[in-house]
């Protein structure tokens, strides 16, 4: 499972970074989204991967760590709002500058 999770995080972040380096705002926003998915998964994994255990200290020998779950939830909410803002800003840039290049002008 560790390898699978690591591969998924790597794939998401890799695609995210690739798209982030593109010159069009649409790809950049997609890249930011993919990158934040990868990082959310990574944050989730920082509490170690545990399956089928309650996130409370009890009789269970290895409980799931509840803190990363809380962190991920916060990160998802913030990431969602930021993505919405980035999309609106891209649309506004398209409207005001007349194109969707990140520098505001066609090379």
């Amino acid at each position, binding site marked *: 499972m560790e390898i699978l999770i690591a591969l998924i995080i790597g794939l998401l972040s890799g695609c995210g970074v690739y798209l*982030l380096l593109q010159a069009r*705002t649409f790809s*950049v926003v997609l890249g*930011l989204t993919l*990158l*934040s998915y990868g*990082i*959310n998964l*990574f*944050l989730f*994994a*920082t*509490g*170690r991967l545990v399956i089928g255990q309650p996130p409370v200290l009890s009789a269970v020998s290895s409980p799931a760590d509840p*803190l*990363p779950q809380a*962190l991920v939830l*916060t*990160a998802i909410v*913030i990431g969602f*709002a*930021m993505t919405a*803002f*980035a999309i609106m*800003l*891209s649309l*506004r*840039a398209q409207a*005001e*500058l007349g194109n969707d290049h*990140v*520098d*505001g002008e066609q090379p």
Partner: protein
Amino acid sequence: MITAHGPILPLILPLAVAILLLFLPRRAQRLTRMLSVAGSVVQVGLGLLLLRTVAEGTQLVYRLGDWPAPYGIMLVVDRLAAWLLLTSALLALCALIYALAGGDREGRYFHVLFQMQIFGISGAFVTGDLFNLFVFFEVLLISSYSLLLHGGGGPRTRAGLHYVILNLLGSAIFLLAAGLIYSSCGSLNFAHLAQLMAGLDDSQLALARTGGLLLLVVFALKAGIMPLHLWLPAAYSETSAPIAALFAIMTKIGLYAILRMSTLVFGSSAGSLADLYLPWLLPLALLTLLIGAAGALAAARLGRLAAYLIILSVGTLLTAFAGGTGGIAAGLYYLPHSTFAAASLFLCAGALRRCRPVIGDQLIADGDLPQPLIMGGTFFLAAMAISGLPPFSGFIAKLLILKALPQVLVWGMILTTALAAVIALARGGNQIFLAASGPMTLPRGGKSVVLVTSLWEVPAIAGLLILIFILTLAAGPALEFTQDTARQILEPANYIQAVLGGG
């Protein structure tokens, strides 16, 4: 009251004011302005009160919901946090007064966003754990995105797009770093982390080190340190003047975070990770100085000149932070000075833009500048202050920084870049004001309206300059305070004790 609930008051106040302002109808502009200014004045009062409370060396620790450390969320106010809280509150008040000249009417929610921005800035200074630092960074960033774009326009949107995308990437890296540190140490509380760092075994050490250095990258992006400064000049010079002035504190938040992490989490007690940032600070600082000076010399507009001078001051501060107790003390004295001076220069540029609607703040003369004496005089004083010339506090601070770092390279860089700043400012002032009495260099086309400097612009700039005067006159007590501050943050044991109690 102030000892029990002090740390949370500077957070609740702007948040409450912002929420209140949201309910006011659009036509209640007078009330909106009065409430917003009143909130900022009270914030300054709170800053003073907190500063007085912690001046003896106590740390105020506020446990939200009274959860025990290190599990609950902590707010901690020590000398460093109080000093920066007061600086940001004073700056915000001056920027807000300037905005009353009309900048706040360019869009609907200016005052709400402004208060939220103060909320985020104050939160970043008082938070006691890494994840809440991230959250407050996001609060201040999303307000800053909206404020930056306030009023709209093509160039502003383009600069804003770069700023937003880079900072979203920065937030992603921040999360990555926080995750790495959590996975290696199992905590996010600064004080707890400082305790845990020493006991890490080798398998976790690499993760913690990576996390720590990634954090440095994020803070360097916020502070505009050399390779990550590229967003700064465009963003600061394209936005409206009061916002650029308020943003003068934003780079200092990155520097504050670097200082906090390097003295507390990766401080003297961190075992093999002690002084993780120290080898990076001086080289980065010198490169930042270089690029700031080069940019200032090449700038063709006053706003851009001021933005590069901000980068220059970031380089100076970072140099100071690499200089041990004496350096940090001098740096902390230089910090409010450089913030106020840069802000006053941005406000001058804004006033110039209003008076010259066609050519704006370009470094070009214009025959009939209204009130040349006031404009030229304030520019002259602001330029003297920011370049660190003798009568002002910047001179004392730079002298002490030089004294703390007696190295040829540092002296050479600081003195050369200061000279470059003086040349750039003298040239700028010459081109704008002295040549103004000569023949016109531009056709008068489209210049039908001559706007007179507004009633609110002069007191705002004068306020910032008066603050610099006070800082100069009170150099003795202020330096004593910053020296105490430097000593306090370089001995993290007290902080850890105050936050975690006996254990």
